């Protein structure tokens, strides 16, 4: 991927990435290879023509206005649409070269490798310990010591251990929103997935809790490939290595708004020197 050096644009208040060198985005191995992907809900085409590559141990952000299909695309990556009646995914979605929607592929196996953190913190109404150990348990780990260890390392990785180590047996619902979301991250990484998908993980959180999650994401990047959907452009600029900008276009034939991928590039380039005018308009706040 050819990446141009960002040029300074002092008139643009949204530039937060000028100090970063675009060349810093390494071409790590490709995890997801997506070509001409589309997702339908019944006859309604929610997003179309998505082609991009997601790289290992990097943070890829999907940004764009409401209804642009970014969350829909994210959920296609771990087959969460399987549970939505009428939803259909078409096009090429390869995970390490394997067709995610191939006839031999089990959605359960896919989700064990590709975890997900949701928009609203959604811990189970169980204890903190049981929340984190749920994934390892359904994956067949029964050994108490091993579970204890996984719970601790996962909570440490999610920067939550010190806050909850004395109350592991109490209900997860007693935690604050930010703590709950970090618990959900701990719960996800306890399964030891390769990829963590995050669907607007901070949209229900206050700025301080948001900052902690962002800091956490930067740390987790060394172990996991992260794909994050965010409404918040500054967040994408702050944490991501690559950014995909989606928008919604009106289809004149059937009057439906369908999401499309406008541009995908290194984050530094996207926020300083985007190739597409629509991207530029969006990140400078003229639209969306």
């Amino acid at each position, binding site marked *: 991927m050819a990446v141009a050096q960002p040029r300074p644009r002092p008139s643009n208040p949204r530039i937060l990435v000028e100090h970063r060198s675009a060349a810093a985005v390494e071409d790590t191995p490709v995890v997801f290879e997506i070509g001409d992907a589309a997702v339908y809900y019944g006859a309604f085409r929610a997003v179309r023509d998505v082609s991009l590559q997601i790289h290992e141990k990097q943070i890829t952000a999907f940004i764009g206005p409401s209804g642009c299909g970014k969350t829909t695309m994210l959920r296609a990556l771990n087959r*969460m649409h399987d549970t939505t009646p009428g939803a259909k995914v078409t096009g090429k979605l390869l995970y390490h070269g394997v067709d995610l929607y191939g006839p031999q592929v089990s959605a359960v196996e896919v989700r064990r490798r590709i*975890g997900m953190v*949701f928009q609203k913190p959604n*811990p*189970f*109404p169980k204890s903190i310990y049981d929340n984190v150990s749920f*994934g390892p348990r*359904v*994956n067949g780990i029964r050994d108490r010591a091993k579970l204890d260890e996984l719970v601790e390392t996962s909570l440490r990785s999610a920067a939550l251990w010190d806050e909850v180590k004395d109350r592991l047996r109490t209900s997860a619902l007693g935690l604050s929103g930010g703590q709950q979301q970090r618990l959900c991250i701990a719960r996800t990484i306890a399964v030891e997935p390769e990829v963590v998908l995050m669907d607007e993980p901070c949209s229900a959180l206050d700025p301080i809790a948001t900052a902690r999650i962002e800091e956490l994401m930067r740390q987790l990047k060394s172990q996991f490939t992260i794909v994050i959907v965010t409404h918040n452009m500054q967040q994408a600029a702050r944490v991501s290595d690559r950014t995909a900008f989606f928008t919604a276009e009106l289809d004149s034939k059937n009057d439906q708004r369908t999401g499309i991928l406008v541009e995908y590039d290194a984050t530094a380039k996207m926020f300083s020197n985007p190739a597409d005018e629509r991207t530029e308009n969006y990140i400078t706040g003229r639209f969306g």
Partner: protein
Amino acid sequence: MQLFELRGRSHHADKAFGWITIAAAGLVLVILGLVAASMTQRALPVLEKMGPDLFTSSKWSAAEDHYGLLAFLFGTLYTAAIALVLAVPVSLGVALFITQVAPRWLKKPMVYLIDLCAVVPSVVWGLWGVLVLSQHFGLGRSFLTAGIILAIMITPIITSLAREVIETTPLTDKEAALALGATRWEMICATVLPHSKGGLVGAVMLGLGRAMGETIAAALVIGSALGQITANPFAPGNSMPAVIANEWGEADDLHKSALIALAVTLFALTIVVNLLATWIVQRGRRHA
């Protein structure tokens, strides 16, 4: 001035509304109290004559003016228990199938069919039991035949309630479990069942109440044997409402009083069952 008047009027309307609702709620309690009082009063003669024997004796003889209801109490509980053992797994299975497994096009017809079963008059079920279960399948008139008929009758009710309760499981909980690599069954065990526990107990208890109170279908297939207390499900027996229906027409004074005592006992039993259900449901909620 006008504003003041407006405010005054709406205040009166509010008060009136409050009193109407209180009156409606009070009326229900008053009716319930009157029923209990007048029934108990008419049951007193037999209680005076029989003393505690009324509840501890299984001998029921109008000719000897000896009335002990133990056998009927046993028959009621035994047939209701058979009905629950048969109906609960089926109801839960159907409810889970409709809510979690069935394709969208099948859901509505299934729900419609189940609801249709609930409106079949009980005398039709009773006659069908006589013709098919007793005669064709040779089960005779017995506890088991009555239990099966009661099971068929309460299955639609339990299914309907269970389905509604199960459908209130938050999608976010279910998705969280699936995203951790849980299979559909693991997801159901981890989220749907714990979430619905209280409501499911309530549904079962309501089915139990219905099974204990069912009169005409039970009267047709239970066999109308007097004094029968046996664990043999193929033996003919009797239940409290069936006895009342069968004997009321030819009963004289003390016999009538004895039948009313049966009714009061049944009434008390259903109240106990419902209180127990409420207690279990609330305890379940506190633990969640």
